């Protein structure tokens, strides 16, 4: 009720933040001016974040902001406990589909009305990325920094194998993998957590669920064929086993070793590869879209806890971070933020200073309409739990594709039923 009143009042206001500040302060004045901001493992950016807090504090006198940073795997434990205790951080940063799960639990504030009230803010973002955190049509998070999968390839190996460029279809991909496979070299690697391998299926027209997310649609002849071919390639060594067993360090580390033809991973992988592989450079590391331009996003979003004592202030902070903050973050971390204006500006600078990173980030902003493997599910992790182990065993040839997918279908159906 009051929320909508406030947003209506906002409508009349000019977008100029300063003005908004002066007009808005009384509205917020009543509530105690405290915010806590939980970030996901970006402790290295401490100076920047302290700077944000200072600048925001200057704009909103008397506001203190507590900054918490936890490393990824431990954030759920921390946040859930805080939820249970009724003291969740006001502004939280999550990765992948976790935000949707919290939204589904009723932990997050529905940002839709605010976005409708402030078109200017909505317009900031690449709509496809913004839509990543839309559950049943309601927006629960704003893009903080964005990533999706792409295809890295080892140019020297491609040359030696007489390949002109990156593959353009699933068939070509497997062929290229075969070509580059050798004595102690394998052709293809992919990350497998958070559905990041899904483009391999999407490029064959396989979808996990129906549009309405009510029924599973993956147990098809095509899917079985694709799985069989992948399993075959894995058995032959053309696809590196680590693709299906590794997490983050193992596959990226293997590719950095310099004897793997292609790596299907999301953009942050580059910085890890660069750190470990001394062969990595603009003329040796190829960057391309996966065939068909399909990619699975794994972005970082910012949301507001429903239990927040002063959501309006949190919203102001969110707007601040996804604008000025994003600008700074993009430069420091060399990443794209989903804020179109910011990214255009930063990319222009990068094109000069670091062409390779530019090329990589460019893929993140293209084909954003071809994002797959990001079904807006409230129980995404449970769904993964139901689906992945079965597929994994098929891909590793521990059971045949047909029965594995049938089993997976049974389990997915059960998850859909339980909701």
């Amino acid at each position, binding site marked *: 009720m009051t929320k909508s009143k406030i947003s209506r009042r906002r409508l009349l206001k000019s977008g100029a933040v300063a003005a908004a500040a002066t007009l808005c302060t009384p509205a917020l004045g009543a509530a105690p001016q405290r915010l806590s901001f939980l970030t996901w493992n970006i402790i290295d950016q401490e100076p920047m974040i302290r700077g944000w807090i200072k600048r925001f504090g200057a704009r909103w006198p008397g506001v203190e902001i507590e900054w918490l940073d936890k490393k990824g795997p*431990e954030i759920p434990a921390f946040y859930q406990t805080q939820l249970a205790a009724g003291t969740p951080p006001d502004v939280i940063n999550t990765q992948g589909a976790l935000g949707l799960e919290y939204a589904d639990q009723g932990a997050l504030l529905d940002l839709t009305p605010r976005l409708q009230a402030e078109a200017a803010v909505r317009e900031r973002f690449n709509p496809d990325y913004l839509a990543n955190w839309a559950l049943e049509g309601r927006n629960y998070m704003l893009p903080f920094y964005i990533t999706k999968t792409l295809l890295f390839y080892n140019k020297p190996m491609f040359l030696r194998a007489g390949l002109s460029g990156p593959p353009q279809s699933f068939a070509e991909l497997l062929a290229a993998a075969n070509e580059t496979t050798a004595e102690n070299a394998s052709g293809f690697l992919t990350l497998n957590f958070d559905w990041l391998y899904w483009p391999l299926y999407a490029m064959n027209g396989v979808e996990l669920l129906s549009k309405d997310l009510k029924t599973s649609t993956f147990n098809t002849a095509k899917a079985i064929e694709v799985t069989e071919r992948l399993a075959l390639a894995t058995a032959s060594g053309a696809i590196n086993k680590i693709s299906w067993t590794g997490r983050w360090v193992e596959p990226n580390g293997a590719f950095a070793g310099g004897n793997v033809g292609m790596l299907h991973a999301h953009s942050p992988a580059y910085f890890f590869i660069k750190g470990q592989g001394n062969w990595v450079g603009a003329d040796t590391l190829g960057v391309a879209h996966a065939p068909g331009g399909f990619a699975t996003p794994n972005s970082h979003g910012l949301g507001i806890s429903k239990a927040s004592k002063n959501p309006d202030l949190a919203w102001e902070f969110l707007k601040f971070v996804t604008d000025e903050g994003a600008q700074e973050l993009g430069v420091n971390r060399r990443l794209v933020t989903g804020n179109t204006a910011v990214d255009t500006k930063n990319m222009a600078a990068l094109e000069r200073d670091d062409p390779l990173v530019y090329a990589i980030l460019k893929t993140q902003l293209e084909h954003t309409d071809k994002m797959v493997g990001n079904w807006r599910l409230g129980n995404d992790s449970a769904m993964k739990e139901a689906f992945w182990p079965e597929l994994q065993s098929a891909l590793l040839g521990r059971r045949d594709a047909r029965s594995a997918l049938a089993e997976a279908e049974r389990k997915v159906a059960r998850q859909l039923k339980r909701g």
Partner: protein
Amino acid sequence: MRRRSLLLLRHACLAMLSCAMLVPFYWVVKTAITGENIYAYPPRILPQNPHLFNFVDVWYLIPFPRYLLNSLIVSALVVAGNVVLNAMAGYALTKNFAGKQAVLLLLLSSMLVPFQATIIPAYLITARLGLLNSYLGLALPLLSAIVCIFIFKAAFEAVPQSLIDAARIDGLGEARIVLLVLMPLSKAAVATNVILAFIWSWNAFLWPLIITRDPSMQTLPLGLARFLSYLEDTTGALYAFAVMVLAPSIFVFLMAQKEFIRGLTSGATKG
């Protein structure tokens, strides 16, 4: 003659075993000080141009001194708490009283409750007590340990009753008897408590993670976990950190091992 060869055989076995046990230590230390790319294959058995810079990195990349201080404070609290509370409980258990079996059963069964499963209620309780994000809050769940209680109990039972009676006749109250007669006679049990309590609190990971909000309250294991997520496996610094975190507990053990081992002798398994 035969005895000699047998002796040699024994030494051989034990020496081999010791080596096997020490290899991981060597490998992590070697990695921590090694100069070249730690991923080069074959790895070198001896570190090439060794250096200590990884340790420097650790010291500065996270507020190591701060975390160290926190860990030390918490461990000190836990050690003190364990010695006092366990001694009291241990002494009480040397007596016979109604419901002793119930108490024993309670203790033993609560040993079997995994902590990871109790995080949320434990957090809520700590919140009720208003101890969130405080040293006491960090220490509280570890403040008493069942195994140690039994060690004290056993140690106290080993003290001849006559001594206690004599003390009573001299008019000492129970508390003073424990303090002035029993404790001095069970140094070993105390040492055991000190070591085990220190180890457990020093190594606690999940609990500090949950109840410390303020970065300046974090302890070393959290720092280690953070490191893991940060530098992943790209550098020797991670292993330098491992060494720096392990050193104190090894140090404490080596310092107190004599009493410790005697402590277990007199304790745990008598009878």
